[in-house]
């Protein structure tokens, strides 16, 4: 039996999905710990979660103030060392502001806050959060979205590079898996819903996998993403040795 993945769930003033991740920890078999943003260390953990919410009130720009919270230095170091980091919704916005991921999340094109179930097409399975054992390219999954500023934007050259490298991992699509303007809930460039960094250890996505991980809430596709972590960890020699 392997040890439970140790996961730091970062909490900024205004974060709201931290409780969802912490409540889910027993379901996922995670040993999850909340880490306040003012901490400058995240401890000896296997993964870091930047949950959704409105860190520091989203003032100035989403994630702009949060990226300078003391904890982000430790998150940056952890990510630079190849540690698995997931940022969902506001977490994705913070990762972009921190330049751990390219691009930026802007106001939805229709200016409305959108809270709904959304179907997504899995484009590739790279890194710790998208295990091929859980998700295949082309799979259509259903996750909640809940955001007013989810329009992914980057320069064309950046988008081209992301696509060429297979780093666009999730796109907004309809239930049949077809990507179209109608299925794009916020006007994101090229219908991008989730991307990974060059090493694929950092995933940012606007949808909320933590809110689709129990039958009671209407779906469990989020589990397929989040369970990928443990599968990935057991394959890492350094981690396996420690266990």
């Amino acid at each position, binding site marked *: 039996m392997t040890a439970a993945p140790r996961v730091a769930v970062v909490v900024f003033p205004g974060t709201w999905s931290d409780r969802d991740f912490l409540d889910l920890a027993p379901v996922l078999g995670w040993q999850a710990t909340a880490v306040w943003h003012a901490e400058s260390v995240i401890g000896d953990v296997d993964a870091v979660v930047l949950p959704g919410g409105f860190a520091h009130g989203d003032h*100035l*720009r989403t994630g*702009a*103030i949060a990226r*300078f919270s003391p904890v982000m230095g430790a998150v940056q170091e952890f990510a630079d060392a190849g540690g698995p980091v997931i940022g969902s919704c506001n977490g994705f916005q913070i990762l*972009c*502001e921190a330049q751990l991921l*390219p*691009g*930026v999340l*802007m*106001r*939805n*094109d*229709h*200016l409305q806050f959108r809270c709904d179930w959304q179907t997504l097409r899995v484009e590739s399975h790279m890194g710790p959060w998208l295990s091929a054992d859980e998700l295949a390219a082309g799979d259509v999954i259903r996750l909640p979205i809940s955001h007013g500023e989810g*329009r992914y*934007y*980057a*320069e064309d050259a950046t988008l081209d590079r992301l696509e060429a490298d297979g780093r666009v991992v999730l796109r907004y699509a309809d239930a049949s898996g077809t990507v179209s303007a109608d299925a794009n809930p916020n*006007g994101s460039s090229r219908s991008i819903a989730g991307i990974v960094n060059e090493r694929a250890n950092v995933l940012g996505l606007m949808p909320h996998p933590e809110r689709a991980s129990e039958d009671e809430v209407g779906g469990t596709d989020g589990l397929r993403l989040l369970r990928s972590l443990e599968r990935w960890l057991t394959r890492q020699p350094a981690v396996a040795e420690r266990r």
Partner: protein
Amino acid sequence: MRWLADVHVRLRPGIADPEGQTIAGGLHALGFDSVVSVRSGKLLRLTFEADDHAAAEAALDGMCRRLLANPVMETADWELRAEADAEPGEIQ
């Protein structure tokens, strides 16, 4: 000495600005048909200390680069003046 700066944060040219478009639509609805376009942005008025004009410029440049604007989508420029030269109503 103390300085005042009005920092204008603008969306880069060509970046979609649904907020500006909506404001333009509102103006059109009120009969201001002459409005061709509206671009939204932010105005930040800063009061800060710096030894001289060059130091104040350098400080503003650093603040804009590090925090006030995201270069992926925005540019920043500013109007800088000594607080002593400001109109009384401009000083907070």
